[in-house]
């Protein structure tokens, strides 16, 4: 088997039972098995249905505003003196991040299955806002679970969700962040499984979620691939995206998996440093285990207990990661690296000042690593960095670090 074949085969996953090699699967309590089998069947049917695809594409075009631009950051590239940097502008989507690609898709599934109520977990609040947005548009009842710590950090998004008509539940259990919000959303779902569609926000969770969230976000990579060919006449040398659960990265990477010459970098949150113990980098520093319905890399202690994570960005503050990333790491297809809070803030400021684009702190992880990567390359090479979201929601955090109250 040649290497190219191997790479093409990566695009055939998951298998019928939702496994990416040893990862993925469906590790849930029995009450949810039926709902997941039903969702799997619905998705299998609808993803092959041209009418469903047409409706999805139409919403992406006219409601989200796709395609998002592939922007050549010329001034920043020149300043760094290395590879040409192209930014995939997911920050320009309606609601301000890539998250809406997935919620549009899952809301359509909810509509087709006739469920009147949707729930979601959220970290930074981007997925919560994107869910509340599509729920408002389709007239669905909407409840969002968000860790109490994140409710505090992301007050602006909490208010946005409320304006959109969603009920926001602050989760006080455990570490009061994204993982606890996901636990609570699972508990809601198991209780209200007949009436409720659970819109998971990342490429994690039980099968078929990792697959369908990836598929809905793959529009990012499909567009970027085509735009790169049209605008530059060739494919990029490298792709860079931040990885928390990993949905924006999977969306960008997936359509390029078989392009052997395209290197890929997934950037995790190194927090105070990978050796500090205060980070959120399960692929760089964790080990395989089972959480939230799938087997994947986790941050865990000597007893298999999930440990608390730390990141300046709420959206990356998660101890697990999508199972497909776990597989791509082991397969050696994607390089998983990490960026520390300090370099992330510096990249946030730099892009804002040099290009007039204020990135989300999550996306700033990709920018921080992309900057270093570009500098190690030559000006005739090019990289695409996924600018997964805009930074407005993070103004309070950055101002707070500067000692300013806004």
């Amino acid at each position: 088997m040649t290497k190219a074949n191997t790479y093409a085969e990566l695009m055939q996953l998951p298998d019928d039972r939702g496994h990416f090699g040893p990862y993925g699967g469906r590790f849930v309590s029995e009450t949810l098995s039926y709902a997941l089998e039903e969702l799997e069947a619905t998705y299998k049917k609808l993803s092959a249905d041209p009418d469903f695809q047409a409706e999805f594409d139409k919403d992406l075009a006219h409601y989200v505003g796709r395609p998002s631009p592939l922007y050549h950051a010329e001034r920043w590239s020149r300043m760094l003196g290395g590879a040409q940097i192209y930014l995939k502008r997911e920050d320009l989507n309606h609601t301000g991040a890539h998250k809406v690609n997935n919620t549009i898709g899952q809301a359509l599934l909810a509509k087709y299955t006739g469920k009147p109520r949707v729930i979601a977990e959220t970290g930074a609040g981007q997925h919560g806002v994107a869910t509340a947005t599509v729920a408002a548009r389709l007239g669905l009842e909407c409840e969002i679970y968000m860790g109490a710590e994140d409710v505090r950090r992301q007050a602006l998004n909490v208010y946005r969700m409320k304006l959109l008509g969603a009920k926001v539940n602050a989760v006080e259990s455990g570490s009061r962040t994204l993982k606890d919000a996901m636990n609570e959303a699972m508990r809601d779902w198991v209780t209200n499984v007949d009436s409720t569609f659970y819109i998971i926000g990342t490429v994690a969770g039980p099968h078929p979620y990792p697959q369908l969230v990836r598929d809905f976000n793959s529009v990012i990579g499909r567009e970027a691939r085509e735009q790169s060919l049209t605008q530059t006449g060739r494919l990029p040398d490298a792709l860079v995206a931040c990885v928390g659960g990993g949905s924006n990265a999977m969306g960008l990477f997936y359509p390029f998996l078989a392009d052997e010459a395209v290197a890929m970098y997934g950037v995790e949150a190194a927090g105070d440093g990978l050796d500090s113990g205060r980070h959120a980098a399960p692929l760089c520093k964790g080990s395989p285990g089972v959480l939230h319905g799938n087997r994947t890399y986790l941050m865990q202690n000597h007893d298999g207990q999930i440990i608390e994570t730390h990141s300046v960005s709420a959206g990356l503050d998660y101890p697990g990661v999508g199972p497909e990333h776990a597989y791509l790491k082991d397969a050696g297809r994607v390089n998983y690296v990490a960026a520390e809070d300090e370099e992330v803030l510096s990249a946030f400021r730099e892009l804002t000042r040099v290009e007039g684009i204020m990135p989300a702190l999550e996306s700033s992880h990709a920018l921080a690593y992309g900057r270093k990567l570009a500098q190690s390359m030559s000006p005739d090479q090019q990289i695409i960095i996924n600018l997964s979201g805009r930074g407005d929601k993070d103004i309070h955090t950055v101002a707070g670090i500067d000692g300013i109250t806004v």
Partner: protein
Amino acid sequence: MSRIEQKFAQLNEQGKKALIPYITGGDPEPGYTVGFMHALVEAGADMIELGIPFSDPMADGEVIQKAHERSLAAGTTLEGILEMVAEFRQTNQDTPVVLMGYLNPIEYMGYANFAQKAKTAGVDGLLTVDLPPEEADDVVPLLKEAGIDTIFLIAPTTTPARAAKIASHASGYLYYVSIKGVTGSATLDTQAVAEKTAELRQLTSVPVAVGFGIRDGASAAAISQVSDGAIVGSVLVNKIAALAQTPEQIPAALAETLNEMRTAMDA
């Protein structure tokens, strides 16, 4: 014949149903658990489900979530839970002990390692909430080899075809989850449970015990009419929570609740 099978056979002869209390191991502190287990047996428990605490107990309601938090804060580990079972076995060789928890601590210890240690400690069964039979192929044979029964859940949403498949993998007993929801959340509908257990009886000879929503003598008695056993958790864990500052009073409080159920079930 496993200790669990023996127990059900013995109860069957006596015309009685199994009363199965659940407590979280190490709650409120590891040192008390074995004493609680003995108190439960004295008050009429036929088997004990001992919870392995986990940082993310997704299928549990607030009462048992808090128990996991107290237990972990007190330093409980899976190794520690196995030591509790071993200590219990020093003076009790008859009462089956089923460990109940989530997969990750067991996976982290390693399935073969866990099976061996659990056997040595005197564990009789394992129930992992987040391990459906489809994902259990790596685990069940190792447990079987160690003489440990694998207990699976059946839910109100489980289709008959799926229930048949689950039953074919099960040993010890099947745990029927009486309601859609998390532990301790709602009151149960005995009629609906009766229909489901009757359906399960057609599929398997493995005993069917029912849990979720049993909180007093009346509900325990009602459930035991239509099943092989009643599993009771949150109401006991609530007693532990209320008396966490005066743990010496907990055994009597657990005994009082369990006695009431035993009496009602045997009446």
